[in-house]
């Protein structure tokens, strides 16, 4: 027993790496706790043995006397232990929730910033893609402008053509008018001269001739009618 105790003591005085970095480890208590917690039995009974021994000692030597305070202490202990066991996890979860909400607010800000930046990247990529397709746009615009120019030119040519045609038509009409007027004038002059050159003798002879012609025609017609 003594050798096992001594070996556990020796192994407990060797400091662990983690313990060396701690600032609040007392050599005495850490050794004691290490020694007490090195399990030899399935459940670690050393602290309980110490507790039971101390309690028995205090009670038997009447260092601690059981009185009414003990009973009120027992009541108070029941209340405390019950409330801790019952409400402990809920309170801890609530405290964690408060911290989580705080973290989440900051995360939201960060997520929003990240999202807006990602959106900016997407927009930039789209703009770059648009820039690549810019030449298509320019070709279309160029074609459009060329078409407009062509249309405009053709319209003007058409206008010019019409104007020229109008002028030429005017000239033609003028000429034809001229000719017609000359012709009419000539005809009327000729008629006038002819009419004025008809002497009364000629007029009589022509009228007599007409009458004889008419009579002959009438005879012919009569003959045709009777036949």
């Amino acid at each position, binding site marked *: 027993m003594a050798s096992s105790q001594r070996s556990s003591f020796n192994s407990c005085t060797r400091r662990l790496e983690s313990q060396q970095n701690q600032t609040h480890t007392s050599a005495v208590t850490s050794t004691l706790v290490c020694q007490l917690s090195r399990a030899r039995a399935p459940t670690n009974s050393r602290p309980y043995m110490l507790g039971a021994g101390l309690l028995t000692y205090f009670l038997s030597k009447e260092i601690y006397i059981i009185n009414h305070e003990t009973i*009120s202490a027992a009541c108070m202990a029941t209340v405390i232990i019950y409330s801790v066991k019952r409400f402990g996890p809920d309170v801890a979860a609530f405290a964690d929730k408060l911290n989580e909400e705080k973290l989440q607010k900051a995360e939201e800000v960060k997520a929003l910033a990240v999202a807006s930046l990602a959106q900016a990247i997407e927009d930039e990529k789209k703009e770059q893609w648009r820039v690549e397709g810019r030449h298509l746009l320019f070709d279309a615009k160029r074609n459009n402008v060329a078409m407009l120019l062509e249309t405009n030119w053709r319209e003007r040519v058409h206008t010019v053509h019409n104007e020229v045609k109008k002028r030429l038509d005017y000239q033609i009409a003028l000429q034809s008018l001229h000719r017609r007027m000359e012709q009419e004038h000539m005809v009327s002059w000729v008629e006038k001269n002819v009419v004025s050159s008809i002497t009364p003798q000629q007029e009589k002879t022509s009228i007599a001739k007409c009458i004889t012609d008419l009579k002959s025609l009438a005879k012919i017609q009569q003959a045709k009618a009777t036949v």
Partner: protein
Amino acid sequence: MMLNFFDQFMSPVLLGIPLIALALLLPWILFPNPAARWINNRLITLQGWSISQTTHQLFTPLNQGGHKWATLLISLMIFLISLNLLGLLPYTFTPTTQLSLNMAFAVPLWLATVIVGLRNQPTIALGHLLPEGTPLPLIPVLIIIETISLFIRPLALGVRLTANLTAGHLLIQLIATAVFVLLPLMPTVAILTASVLFLLTLLEVAVAMIQAYVFILLLSLYLQENV
């Protein structure tokens, strides 16, 4: 040596050193200081949350001038709650069972509210002595009654706290003694009495917190009238 139930309320002195100073300083170490971290551990988070909730609850009805009293009143409330709750543990001394202490809290604070009211808005402060809508013949009597009630306030504040805590402690002691005495004689009755003691302990825990809150609530109400 006779069992004197009032021994628990005697201010403890050890070798001439008043231990009430220790009892008054002890609650301070139970409340951790917030560390210079953004997310704290659960205890500090809960402490901060509960203090901010209580402050919000108490000081929303007050105007800007009343908010200057927030530090004083909330720290006083934390102090009283911790003193009351620690006093429920066995073999502890509750400083708030001493009338001198409670009057030392009540009288200066009440007097401060009255003086603040009379200095800044004397008409309104004096106007509180007459409730609205009183019939004309009752006015002189009512003013006297209201003045008496005004001067009774500090007395009521102090004595309320003292009486509640003293009565609670005494009851716990008496019923615990009853259980202790009955345990060898009539165990069943002792068990019934122990259940009464359990309920009483629950009540005392509630009373401890409520009385401290009521103290501060009434002071904030007196402040609300005068600021």
